């Protein structure tokens, strides 16, 4: 490992948050190109599956994290689970914010069909979403945070899969449509 790679490794070790190439270059007083090269060297050293610590690209930057191989031991050592799971309501709100951001709470509620105060509040409290200005109508807008990307292992919001992937299959859609149309026909018949 050359000196720059060593420095980058040390900076990643010290920093609580993922570091971007620009920050690393600024701290090490080198060009971004050199940092990218150093990161490539580091990545070889930290190839997943060989070490207890791995190099991850999350939240628009790089971060060192422990490999899941150590999770059981880590939990025993630190005596705490990593992150509480999300409830269904929280996950739905988070999905709406992640894909539609910036998005207002009324909009989230419209999509989910129910008011979503409590779930949105919890997501805010847990730092997964944050406020991001106001809509034309004065409603607070929300977006996801860097912590969200970190906890979900996303390199950036671009790494979210295309939401069209989640659309119901044509068969499911067809079935839904049939049911509804029959209900509608009943109206005109009655």
């Amino acid at each position: 490992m050359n000196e720059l790679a060593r420095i980058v490794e040390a900076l990643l070790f010290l920093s609580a948050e993922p570091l971007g190439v620009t920050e690393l270059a600024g701290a090490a007083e080198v060009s971004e190109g050199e940092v990218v090269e150093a990161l490539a060297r580091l990545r070889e050293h930290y190839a997943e599956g060989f070490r207890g610590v791995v190099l991850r690209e999350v939240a628009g930057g790089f971060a060192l994290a422990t490999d899941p191989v150590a999770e059981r031991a880590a939990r025993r050592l630190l005596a705490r689970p990593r992150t509480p799971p999300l409830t269904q309501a929280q996950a739905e709100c988070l999905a709406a914010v992640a894909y539609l951001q910036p998005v207002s709470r009324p909009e989230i509620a419209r999509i989910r069909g129910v008011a979503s105060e409590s779930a949105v509040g919890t997501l805010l409290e847990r730092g997964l979403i944050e406020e991001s200005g106001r809509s034309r109508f004065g409603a607070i807008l929300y977006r996801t945070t860097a912590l969200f990307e970190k906890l979900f292992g996303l390199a950036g919001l671009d790494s979210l899969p295309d939401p069209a992937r989640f659309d119901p299959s044509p068969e499911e859609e067809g079935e839904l449509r049939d049911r509804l149309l029959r209900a509608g026909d009943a109206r005109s018949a009655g």
Partner: protein
Amino acid sequence: MRAASLDLDLEVFQGPFDLLLTLVLREEVDLLEVELADVVLAYVDHLERTGELELEAATEFLVLIAALLELKSRLMLPGEEEGLDWEPQEAAEELLARMLEYARYRAAARFLHERLAAESGFRYRSAPVPRALRRASLEVAEAAYDPELLGQAIGGLLRMPPPLDLHHIPRPSVTLDQRLAHLRKLLSDRRSFPFEDAVAGADRLTEAVTLFALLELYKAGEADWQQKEPFSPITVSAPAKETE
């Protein structure tokens, strides 16, 4: 309990809520004949009986009942009313679009769930930065704070805080002298009276001080008192005047 398994006992239908939904969608039960208010009442009854409001189940119930209400209100709209020329197909299409959109985010939520679970093995370091690196180093430190800040802080500390307002705490204030005077007045007015009269309407502290005042008067020979047996009424009287 899932809202779907809520037991219903309606005029046109008996059974779990989800069966009702299925039958409505299959048109085996006419939604127009279902009293949705009764469904809501049944759910509220259930909540009262079990005494617990499970948020997930309540949410599910609200989504389902809201969908039914919307559907029913559309069924009830007279088709020939002007200005409301929504074709049944249009109404259904709009509902469908919303249900599909919701389905998308439900699935996206599932994706996030799985993603979070998959990430749960990775832990990031949250150890504090070593002390030496936490401080500005003396050599390169530059003025970053305004000394006025310190003057203001010390000035603020010199301010005497307003005295604490305790008026909301009732503080019975009764003195021995007051009670002595009270007893003396009763004695001169009435010569003899039940102790009860001396403490009518008084709080416990006043009662105690009054009793103490009575003992003082007795000691000074200004009053006598009698009590036939423990806890029985006490009669206070002026002592027989020897000089008269």
